[in-house]
């Protein structure tokens, strides 16, 4: 599908708008406080144990954190805020590797797990070849 470039959102633009939307959706003062608190944390330097992300990846992870924090963060302690933020950022590299794995339209999902036991081998099935998306995480 061809869409004019000026009509496209970049991922960063999308992320920025999502942050604004999620923040504005939380009207209660306590919620705003949580968002403000989280935003203040976000503007600071990230700890060393956070993964290094691209600008887009950082924006997406930050958006995820803001969304979660704006919904639930009013009860969180500082330790829990940090844990949530770390979890949001830690999830990002894996999501990016997963998304960059080459899949064709016809590669169907295993909607539920049916282990391939020996007698169920599909006769004449062409074997898809796995291609590494990234090699960095492998041992």
């Amino acid at each position, binding site marked *: 599908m061809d869409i004019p470039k000026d009509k496209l959102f970049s991922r960063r633009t999308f992320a920025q708008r999502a942050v604004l939307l999620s923040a504005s959706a939380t009207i209660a003062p306590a919620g705003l406080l949580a968002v403000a608190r989280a935003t203040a944390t976000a503007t600071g330097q990230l700890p060393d*144990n956070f993964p290094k992300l691209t600008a887009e990846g950082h924006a997406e992870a930050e958006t*995820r954190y803001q*969304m*979660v924090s704006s*919904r*639930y963060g009013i*009860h*969180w*302690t500082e*330790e*829990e*805020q940090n*844990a*949530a933020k*770390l*979890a*949001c950022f*830690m*999830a990002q590299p*894996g*999501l990016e*590797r*997963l*998304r*960059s*794995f080459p*899949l064709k339209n016809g*590669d*169907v*999902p*295993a*909607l*539920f*797990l*049916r*282990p*391939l*036991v*020996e*007698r169920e*081998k599909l006769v004449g*099935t062409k*074997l*898809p*070849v*796995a*291609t*590494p*998306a*990234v*090699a960095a*995480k*492998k*041992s």
Partner: protein
Amino acid sequence: MLGASVLYQSVGELAKKIEAKQISPVELTESYLERSEKLGPKLNAYALLTPEIAMEQAQAAEKEIHQGHYRGPLHGIPYAAKDLLAVKGIPTTWGAKPYSNQVFDFNATVIEHLHHAGAVMIGKASMIELAGGMGYMYASASLQGEGKNPWDTSCWTCGSSSGSGAIVGAGLAAFAIGTETWGSIICPSAFCGVSGLRPTFGRVSRHGAMALAYSMDKIGPMARSAEDCTRIFAAIAGHDPLDRDTLPIDKAAYTYSPSAEMKRRTLRIGWLSNAWKQSSYEPSLASALEAAHKVLQRRFPGSREASLPIGPWEDAANVIVQCEVASAFSTLIDSGKVRELADPLGRVGGYVNQSISGADYTTALRVREILQENMRALFDSYDVLATASQPIPATPLSLNLMNGLSFADPLGAIGNLCGLPALSVPCGFTDRNLPVGIQFVARAGDDAAVLQAGRGFQQATDWHRKHPALS
């Protein structure tokens, strides 16, 4: 009371003595209960001891055996069940405070199977809260506290079947039942120096077990040896109409036949070169594994190197677990009661899991389908893949697991994504006297291959007969 030399015997050895009426199931049960009361609290091994159930079942077993009705190798054998398996009328806490008063009015299918085999349940084994489904940063993420390793109580048992590992490792019961979604049988078995089987997905019914990730949860035995795992697996495997994910009758059931299995076939073993970052092994762990490799080469001639396919398998597994957990515990998450969990990450992890998109989940399922085909092709060349169960020995109790136990685990991801059977058995010790484990993985449905490999390895070694000094 019976001493440790008897209580550390295998199910096979105990069963012979029970059948010959040389050991009384009642005396055996009383002895395990006494040892569990004494040592269990030091290890945080139990969620609950169930002496009344145990004595009732032991007395029934003894009466039947004296009347000549011997049910088989588990008759009169005491065991512990991970506290996520429903047992009628007693608390099943799932290791988590929000469920501390939860009581079911039925037994999990596994509990029913073991009851019919005549086994004696002496307690519920402690576990990581919600089997770690919300994520956790510390070993203390459990209603029962941190699982302490019988080999060194300043070290962890690993999770989430922490109590099951401690109970078998410390000789508090003859065997235990654990569960695995990703690593929860293999890792505690390795850390605690016991033998643990993760069966093929769908061979053991999960009816009555806490659901964590619907497409990845498995239930399996943890015991003194691969042969014991075989006996227990034969008792608990089978199709169950109450669990729609169990395999059909002919593919789920497992028949134990010791002599036939050992002569069955020559296994083609593939020694994995890329399952772990081997250059980071500590020297004594590397030595133990090298020695185990040589044993395998002698025992199974023709063993050769193998490599896992490369791909985002861990990422796919992570996404699937995160999304399925978010759905399985949506009521808990939305209620805010996750705040009652012990671990700081567990208290917020569910919310983060909910934020993973449906598109990413579906992508992960598509990657899983491709991975299954890749592994099917790999198992055309090998019957069993072998490598270290874990690249490190038991870790300190205080370790932040997000930093200290976050190494790559492609084989764990692959095995659990594809529902492959795996067996961990002890293969040595580090220079700090902590157990080292070796694991075997086979194609889906070929649980017999990993059991044969483990039994073959244990016929040539005696690591599974070593026990910690406890008092």
